[in-house]
Structures are given as C-alpha cells and as structure tokens.
C-alpha cells in the first residue's frame, strides 16, 4: 500500500513551528519534534495548550506563522490531496439528510485506497446504525461516524483530536481497540488528549504540550516519572509509623489498622529500606502520585511566570 521512496521519511516532521493568531495569541511557540513511521504517539496537554493547532497544521487546515511542517515527506496539502492521511478534527460535524452508510460510501470513493464498507462499519461500531440519518445520531455516534470517515482511505497517518470526548466507557474501550488494530496494520497514529490515562494506555510515546511548547517527550513511564511522588500501599501487622516516616524519601505515612499508605518522593530508595526494616510486608502496591498530578506538575501548575503569551490557557479541564 505504501510507496517505496517516501517510506524513509518520518511520518511527521515539525521544525521550529510557531503559530500566532491575530498577531498576539501564540498557540505554538517554536515547536520541533519528529514522529517515526508506525509509532502511536499522544499529544498530551490541557485545553488551549496548542494540541489542536498542531494537528490542524499537520492536516493543512492552518498554515504555521513560521517554521516547517512535513507529513510523510510531503507538505500537508499534498498528503491530503494524495489521500495519505486521515483525520478526526475537533468539531467535525456531519451534514443533515445523509445516512451513515452514504457518508462512509462517499469517503471510500473520495479516497483511492479503500477499506471495505463492512470493515469501516465494524471498526467504528456502526453496523447496527448504518441506515440511520445524521439527524438521528447521538453525540457519541457522530463521533464514531467521524472515526469511520478518517479510516476510509486506509491512511498511512491518522490524526485523532480528542477522539473520545463524547464516548461512554464501553465505546471508549472499543474505540481504542480499533485504533490498536489499525496501528498494528502499520498506520502511524497521532492523537491529542487531555487525559494522561488515555495517553498512557494507548501510546508508546507521549509529547506533553503546554502554553504552545513541548514540556516533555518520552515513553509513558518516563512521563509519569516526572512526578516523583509515589503512593506505596501495603499491609503489616503492627505498623510503626515513626520508623516508617524516617525511611528515605517518605513525606507522609497513614496507617489504618494493618493497612499502610506511604507517600514517597523517591520510591526506589524507600522500598529497599522498607524491606530492610524486617517487618512483614504483604500486598505491596506502588502507584503513581496521581496521573493528573503528573500532568499538572509538567504543565506548570498555573505557574504564570512560565506562561509565554497564550491568553486562552485553561487548566480547568485537566482531568
């Protein structure tokens, strides 16, 4: 399905990209990154961080103020015209009067490389509502139709901008299963989310964006490690809180019966020391210090000194 020559070029190259709206709101501030082919990457950040702007730029819906954006070794416009990329953009509505099956059939014809109608209906969980009209669909169903449309061309590169916003838990699970199946077929996937759990569970790499800048870029465990706080839970017959408090890295100990919860800034040091106490330790669990805390820690936690020029920054919907 893929041509030989541009195979070597990365799926996405962002080189020193800046996007300024109306000459004053900086949505992207000298952003550079590369995404190799076949990767599944999350763009993670609060609303207004610049995720949608970045995705719109890669889809050719917006032009960067400065810098260079290449997708699949081409300009975004060329990649769109060639039908090589698919996308689920935010607020991508559907036209009244059309049936689900007609929309999918249309997109299969607009793209040269096609998935079968049945495959698309199945991947997006639409088989039962293929004959419904757009006006009769719920928000979650519309989102699934848009997912099917983004897959119609069997794209080499798939962009998903907050794709699960209107989906319930069950639909979310099915959605990510389908994304996984598509990624397994070799499609590069880039999705934006403001949920760290979603990025953690579905991406092999997370790029954290805030205030139009990349704050962190790494594997999910690397990203989660940015929050040094870990919660260590275990049970022990007679908890000795004062000796537990003296363990390296420990900031807080809560004991309730034989259940103990320790908060540690350095779990790697705390755990050996805990076992060295010689007390029986059962059912040990180490949890991240709250996934959302990691995100807030990374994105500056309302630290206005770090806010460049973004005026539309909004932390309220983190988590």
């Amino acid at each position, binding site marked *: 399905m893929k041509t030989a020559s541009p195979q070597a070029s990365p799926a996405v190259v962002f080189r020193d990209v800046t996007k300024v709206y109306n000459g004053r709101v900086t949505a992207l501030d000298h952003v550079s990154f590369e995404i190799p082919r076949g990767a599944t990457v999350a763009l993670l950040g609060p609303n207004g961080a610049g995720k949608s702007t970045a995705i719109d730029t890669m*889809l050719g*819906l917006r032009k960067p103020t400065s810098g260079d954006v290449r997708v699949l070794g081409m300009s975004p416009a060329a990649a769109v015209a060639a039908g090589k990329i698919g996308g689920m*953009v935010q*607020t991508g*509505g559907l*036209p009244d*009067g059309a049936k689900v099956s007609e929309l999918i059939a249309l997109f299969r014809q*607009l*793209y040269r490389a096609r998935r079968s109608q049945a495959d698309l209906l199945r991947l997006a969980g639409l088989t039962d509502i293929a004959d419904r009209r757009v006006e009769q669909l719920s928000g979650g169903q519309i989102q699934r139709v*848009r997912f099917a449309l983004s897959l119609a061309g069997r794209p080499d590169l798939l962009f998903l901008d907050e794709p699960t916003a209107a989906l319930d838990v069950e639909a979310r699970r099915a959605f990510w299963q389908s994304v996984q199946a598509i990624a397994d077929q070799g499609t590069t996937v880039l999705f934006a989310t403001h949920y760290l759990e979603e990025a953690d569970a579905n991406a092999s790499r997370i790029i954290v964006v805030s205030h139009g800048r990349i704050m962190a870029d790494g594997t999910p465990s690397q990203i989660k490690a940015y929050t040094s706080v870990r919660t260590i839970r275990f049970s022990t017959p007679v908890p000795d809180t004062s000796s537990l408090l003296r363990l390296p890295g420990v900031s807080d100990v809560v004991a309730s019966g034989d259940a103990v919860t320790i908060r540690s800034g350095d779990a790697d040091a705390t755990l050996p020391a805990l076992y060295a106490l010689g007390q029986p330790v059962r059912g040990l669990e180490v949890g991240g210090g709250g996934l959302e805390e990691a995100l807030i820690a990374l994105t500056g936690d309302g630290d206005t000194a770090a806010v460049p020029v973004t005026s539309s920054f909004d932390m309220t919907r983190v988590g």
Partner: protein
Amino acid sequence: MIAFLRFEIVRTLRNVRFLIMLIAFPVLLYLIYAKQHGTAQGLTVATLLLVSMAVYSGMGSAMFASGPQLARERHNGWMRQLRISPIGTRGWFAAKLVQSVLMIIPGLAVLVVLALTYGHVHLAAGRLGMLAVIIVLGTIPFCAAGLVIGLMFDSQTAQVAQMITLLVMAFLGGIFISWSSLPSGMQTVGKLLPSYHLAQLGWNAAAGRPLGMSHVAVLAAWTVGLGAIAAWRWRQESTAA
C-alpha cells in the same frame, strides 16, 4: 467529484419539504397572474410571466443549493472534515456548481408544463429550448452568489442575507414588477443586477428577438466577480485563523 455530487443530490432530494417550498412560491404566483390579459415586451402575460417565474425560481434554487446550508456546514465542522479529504478545492467547487444547476431544473420543468397547459402558452420548440438553456446557464452567477453568502455569513444570518438578496434581485431586476415602473434611482441600480439581464435574455428568447450580447457579458462579469470572492473567502478560511 461525481461521488460527492451524487451524495449531495441524494441528501437534498430527501428534503422534500424544502424542495416543494422552493418551487411552490413561483408556481403560486404563476397560477394567480397567468390568466390576465394583455401584452408586454411583445409577449402575452402568460409567456412573460413564465420567463419571470422561471428566473425567480432559478435564482432561488441556485442560491439555496449552497447558501445557508453551506454556512451551517462550515459552522458545524463538516467542511473541515471535507477539507482534509482528497476532494480538493476544484472538485468541491465543480460539484457545487453542477448541483446548483441541477437544482434549477425541477422548478423550471414545473413552470414550463404549467405554462403550456394552464397558461395556454404557445412557444415554438426552438424558442422554448433556447429559454431553458438561458435559464439554466444564466443562473450560474446566482450559484456563485449562493457560495459567497454561504462563505461570508454565519449559519444564522445566511438565511436572512439570502432572502434579502433574492427579493432585491426580484424587485429591482424587474421580475416582480415592471422595471420601467421603478423610481429612476432604483432603475439605475436594477440595471446593474444580474436578475435584470437574465430576465431580458429570457424575454428576448421567448419573443424570438436577438438575445443581446451585453446581457450575456454582464452575467459573465457577475459570475467572475462573485466566483473570485468565493474563491478568496475559501482560501482565506483554509489558511488563516
């Protein structure tokens, strides 16, 4: 582009109520006035009115093929979804143009049948054919007008903008009332409008007179001008903001 055109036509045809409303008004006017006696522009009232109503119906259908619906679909994000598909700007514009032209045909057909039966209009097949061609091709500037309205206005104001445009075109262009009975200032404005020139072409065709190339030139100029504005708005929206 063919696939998109078919898709657009299927979903438009599904909106039967909309299509009936589009045709109903000019048909009703024809039924009311066609039986009047007299001649004007060298034509019987029934023939004159056939042309007027065909122009009016054509303008409305052409503009409504894009207009408010386009504004709505820009607003709800469907246009963004289309822009990231391989349909391309040219394919989209071509499909919209053909769709607009096809939308004209039902209204025109109903009016012609009505004129030949109810209105007892006798037109040679050649003249009738010429009239049909003029109406279909002559409403292309109004397709462009619909695109401009759909691309310039938001979903709420596009409907109003469209109605005002249509009524101004109809009144000042001499379609609802005789152009010569307008105040002179309005006559000047009316004579600049594409509706005036389309109606003149239609009446000339029906009466077997020379069509008048100046009318064709004005319609072509409107098409180019409005088309350029639509293309500019399209580009502006796809790259800026």
